[in-house]
């Protein structure tokens, strides 16, 4: 059964087509990833699904009902976690969750138990009476999620929920999303972090310039690019790296160095691993780990658009 069906969705702002004839469907019980660089149209699409923005053209159906005709029904089914923090700093964690849950008609004992449940879900039950202004960024992000789930929505929309937070909070949020899904909620998750989408989502749609350019499971998407592979090498002494030397090796397409992690994109049919290792050893780098793998979503996106996911 389809929870969400979007057909030919279009949104224009003046001459700009932020969303351009987008069509996709989300099945019940899945974690659906909407992946794309900044400005791809992900947030605009989500705003229209949540009835926060009128669509220029197209149709959105939630549980079979057109949201344009049944906006209140649609709103009751959705729990929105906006990209930016949307909480009251002057109120306690509990008051925030209870206030937003109350907007969905929950009252009295039911409201209290659902608010407590939501706080416990994101690990903030022991901070329930603390004012939000005293929270760390990661705690605020978790509370941002709790505020969206207390009314037990059938579809939870998370718009880049891990932007700008520490790794521990990120892991905690990703774990919460998985548990929400296991508890029966369908999740629509947007991100421009490919690793998150790869590890979390059952299906992914890649967006660019307001359109879906590819859609499917991770293996389906990576199979689009058959002629590439990645060599991930952990090294010490990255400051002595001879990047131009690596790029000169036959088959090497790109080299990225992130701290002590080297990521080399190479043609799949060229056997150049020994040449890469020799070059690194020659420039004095100490190799601690080597891994070769198929193409990532990043590679897929690069192959489809010619741009990196994190290019602005």
């Amino acid at each position: 059964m389809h929870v969400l069906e979007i057909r030919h969705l279009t949104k224009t702002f003046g001459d700009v087509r932020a969303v351009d004839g987008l069509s996709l469907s989300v099945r019940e019980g899945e974690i659906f990833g909407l992946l794309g660089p900044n400005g791809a149209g992900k947030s605009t699409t989500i705003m229209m699904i949540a009835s926060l923005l009128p669509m220029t053209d197209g149709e959105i159906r939630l549980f079979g009902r057109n949201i344009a005709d049944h906006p209140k029904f649609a709103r009751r089914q959705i729990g929105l976690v906006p990209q930016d923090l949307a909480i009251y700093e002057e109120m306690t964690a509990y008051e925030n969750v209870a206030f937003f849950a109350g907007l969905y008609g929950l009252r009295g004992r039911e409201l209290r138990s659902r608010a407590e449940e939501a706080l416990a879900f994101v690990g903030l039950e022991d901070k329930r009476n603390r004012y939000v202004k005293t929270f760390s960024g990661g705690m605020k992000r978790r509370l941002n999620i709790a505020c969206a789930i207390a009314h037990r929505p059938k579809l939870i929309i998370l718009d880049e929920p891990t932007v700008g937070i520490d790794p521990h909070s990120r892991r905690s949020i990703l774990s919460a999303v998985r548990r929400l899904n296991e508890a029966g909620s369908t999740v629509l998750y947007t991100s421009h972090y490919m690793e998150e989408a790869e590890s979390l989502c059952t299906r992914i749609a890649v967006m660019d310039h307001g359109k879906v350019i590819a859609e499917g499971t991770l293996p389906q998407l990576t199979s689009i690019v058959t002629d590439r592979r990645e060599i991930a090498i952990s090294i010490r002494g990255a400051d002595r790296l001879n990047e131009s030397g690596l790029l000169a090796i036959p088959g090497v397409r790109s080299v990225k160095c992130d701290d002590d992690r080297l990521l080399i994109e190479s043609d799949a049919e060229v056997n150049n691993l020994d040449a890469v290792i020799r070059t690194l050893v020659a420039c004095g780098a100490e190799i601690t780990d080597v891994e070769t793998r198929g193409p990532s979503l990043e590679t897929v996106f690069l192959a489809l658009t010619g741009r990196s996911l994190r290019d602005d």
Partner: protein
Amino acid sequence: MRVVRLMRILHIAMKELKEFRDPAMLVFMLATPLAIMLILGSALSRGFDREAEIGEIRVLFRLEQADGTLGQAWADFVREADASGVRFEAAGGRETGMEMEMVRRAEFTGMAEISESGIVYTGNDRAAVENAIVQGLLQTFADRYRVSSVLASAGVSAPEDEEREYVRTAIADGSRRPGSMDYYAVAMTTMIILYGALTAAQLMERERKRKTDLRLLAAPVSKAEIFIGKIVGSFLLHAAFTVLLVLLSRYALGADWGSRPLIVFPVLFSQILFVLGLGVAAGYLFRSGAAGVVIMAIVQIEALFGGAYFPVDEMTGWFGAIAAWSPLGLTNRALLEVIYADGWPTAPRAMAFNIGAAALCLASAAAFMRKREGL
């Protein structure tokens, strides 16, 4: 369905109250107007004094005809005046220049020349209050003598007893007037309410800045419910604050708020409604920063012409004309009337104006909100 809507509106209103409970902020917001009341009430108390101590007043006089009707009437008048502390002394053989010199040196308050054709009074420039008293007495004498003369020429005899005088002087009872502390308690309370327009202008803007507008609009709540809920919450907050301020000024500073709280508070609450409407409308009409600047300018002008810093009731000219149209002034006049006068005819007018203007402003703001995609 209506009950559900009402519950949602109250839920949003309660959130407005919960957001504002910083004890330090509350103390600051109460302490500031109370301190201003205390400072202005104490510093400007002389301007509101109803009693001034005046010593004996000495006046020189020269009477054209000491005998005859005028002379007799004057002699009676001088005796009466002496009993009330104003001593008229005959100039006698002193030269005219000498008499005026004595007045200039303040040995005498003034010099009166009395004749059948009228009274000429010349007073010392530095004795304004004393001069006013003497002039009042001389005016009374002149009126009484003129009436007696007319009656005599018409053949009507003068009354036999003093109780049946034809000319009587009456003064208004000035016992119920505000002292400085009383005045500034009213003026500061209404001015602080007016400052509430600044926070009202931020009412929706705050939700936008915190991005909570998205969450509110994503919930099954209409824009109208959000709008009304926020206004109701803000109104309750300002009303509670105003009641607290009135009680504190009453019991801590001894300000007189009269014996009609059921009229005083509705007038104040109607002003809160007006101020909320003004602020919210300005918030929609002008972009975030500009709304604050515009409201601040309005508050300052209103405070000046509305009587927040000094009473404006007796102002004349262009200042008086503007003051007469000031909404703050209207509310202040209504409150002072409720507290100090027997009737309160201005209160319904002030409430009608405040509620009418609030309705207009809120309707404009609602129209602006409907046009927007967000709040």
